[in-house]
């Protein structure tokens, strides 16, 4: 029996192609529909497989705008049992440290044996929320997991960690935080019954006060980082797009590469 909490973040759907920055140079989260951050879906898939094997349940934990509750439904449709969403107008424009404090405070009220997080998010991309939460909660931190083997009896977890030279096998006592990678396996599609069931599952929405964090410690007003400027990456050199059907296109590609002595 494993109780697993998974950190998930609603992020702008990059497939929509309509992402844009607001006047404060931060992402305009109203501009495009939100989806569950892709790396978090891998973490959730890993969690679901673990509870299928060991029994138990999965709780989603998120800090987001109030519309985030709907995004969490996708995770509930995939098979998580419940969601906890911290949403508070004060939190708009939060820095990473604020986010870490809020999530850590929230997790103090959630019972879990394992805490899973994605490697990073497609919007911010800092990749430090997972380790930050582990640090604040005093949890063992196991990074870049390609395989997660918990032993609920012995209260330990063993992780195959991707390293520059191959793999490390590391072990820690439970509860522990594991940062997941895509090597854990493709996220499942929600089944139709899962989608129906998700409509009646609980998403508890909490305010900053509910999780016991002072506005002096979290939120846009006390952000430790500031966006000074934003610019587009330098344009790539002229691109030639070949759109002809396969055999003709292949010939053009080969000719192009041959011209440059690549092949």
């Amino acid at each position, binding site marked *: 029996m494993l109780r697993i909490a998974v950190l998930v973040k609603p992020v702008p759907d990059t497939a929509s192609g309509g992402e844009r920055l607001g006047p404060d140079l931060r992402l305009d989260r109203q501009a495009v529909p939100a989806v569950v951050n892709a790396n978090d879906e891998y973490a959730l898939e890993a969690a679901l497989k673990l509870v299928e094997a060991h029994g138990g349940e999965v709780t989603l934990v998120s800090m987001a705008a109030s519309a985030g509750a709907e995004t969490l439904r996708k995770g509930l449709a995939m098979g998580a049992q419940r969601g906890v969403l911290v949403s508070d107008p004060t939190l708009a424009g939060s820095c990473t440290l604020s986010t870490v404090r809020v999530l850590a405070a929230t997790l103090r009220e959630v019972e879990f044996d394992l805490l899973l997080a994605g490697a990073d998010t497609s919007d911010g991309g800092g990749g430090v929320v997972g380790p930050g939460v582990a640090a604040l909660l005093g949890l063992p931190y196991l990074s870049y997991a390609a395989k997660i083997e918990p032993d609920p009896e012995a209260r330990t977890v063993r992780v195959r960690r991707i390293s520059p030279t191959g793999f490390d096998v590391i072990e820690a006592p439970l509860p522990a935080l594991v940062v997941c990678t895509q090597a854990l396996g493709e996220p499942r*599609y929600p089944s*139709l019954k899962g989608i129906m069931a998700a409509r009646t599952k609980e998403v508890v929405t909490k305010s900053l006060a509910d999780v016991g964090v002072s506005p002096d410690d979290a939120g846009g007003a006390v952000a430790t980082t500031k966006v000074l400027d934003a610019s587009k990456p330098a344009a790539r050199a002229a691109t030639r797009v070949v759109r002809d059907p*396969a055999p003709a296109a292949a010939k053009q590609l080969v000719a192009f590469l041959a011209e440059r002595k690549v092949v």
Partner: protein
Amino acid sequence: MTPAETPISYRLTQEQELLRDAVRTLADDRIAPRAAEIDRTAEFPWDIKELLASQDVLGLPFPVEYGGVGGELLTVCLAVEQISRACATSGLILAVQELGALPILLAGTDDQKARWLPDLAAGRTLIAFALTESEAGSDAAAARTRARRDGDDYVIDGAKRFISQGSVADLVTVFAVTDEAAERHARLSCFVVETKSPGFKVERLEHKMGIRGSPTAELSFTKLRVPAGNRIGEEGDGFRIAMRTLDRSRPAIAAQAVGIAQGALEVAARYAAERKQFGKPIGQLQMIAGMLADMDAQTEAARQLLYKACVEIDAGSSQAGRWSAMCKLVAGDTAMRVTTDAVQVLGGYGYIDEFPVERMMRDAKITQLYEGTQQIQRLVIARSLLRRV
């Protein structure tokens, strides 16, 4: 609808939108990449059947108490539409599962439902619908396959033709004559036949123009024994059960047609936006733009008629036959026209198999033929109209 009834929303419910979008994602990611190969090999896509089963899509037409999802007719059609938008053969897997099971759903006893529906809802078994014979197509009441009572069994002899998925099904609902002397519409009875029964044989598979991955079988029954408990409804109810089944199943074929049209429209629009001739995308040439606009408007019109028909049929409309015939007629003709125009928009590229529109055009044709030809739909509509004069 009487004025006293609470008006229902004219939009899809949030639940229907969620289910539709989930099936669309599945179709885009997992089914569309297989469509060309399914067509080329003309092999039944067992992997897609497993996918639809594991995601509960095959459970849509079945009540929750039998392990299904309990979707309304409209929800089933939304799913058939989205799958068919990617692959008409794959869309037919769901449509035929519903078609074959409808006699049980509409006229089966609680025991019969408990016996067959859970496996069908889970997609562990497949079911086909066997009404048509070589000499009894549009004139279904002229069927010659016979079922003779023998103690606690019936003994079935005869043959059925053009049976979708007849060679891959575990069960077939077979319509056979139990009373030769009865009046035309009281001759037939309906039986659930297990295809592993001795005397059941797949004689051959047809080589078809479209929906090539969906096996269309000629079935023969030789002294095939079926327990009387497998008879659906009373003796002589068969024709009535078949017609009630078709009232509810034709919308799924209309949904297949709308899906095919939508798929072709999207390919054509994308192509027209990218393909340049005379220095600009061909979509900016007015003759192409006009074709695309007509294709879009016609597809949307067919879709809206289908959705309305589903809601009316589910609400128990006394004109279910008319609604189902109209939506199949309009959607089938639209699919044929839109796919033909899609090939035209793509020009030479539309005629070769590097683009999917030639497949879609071949697939569209069947929607004008099966579950009643367009001519039969017109007869049904006209009769209903004249009755009301």
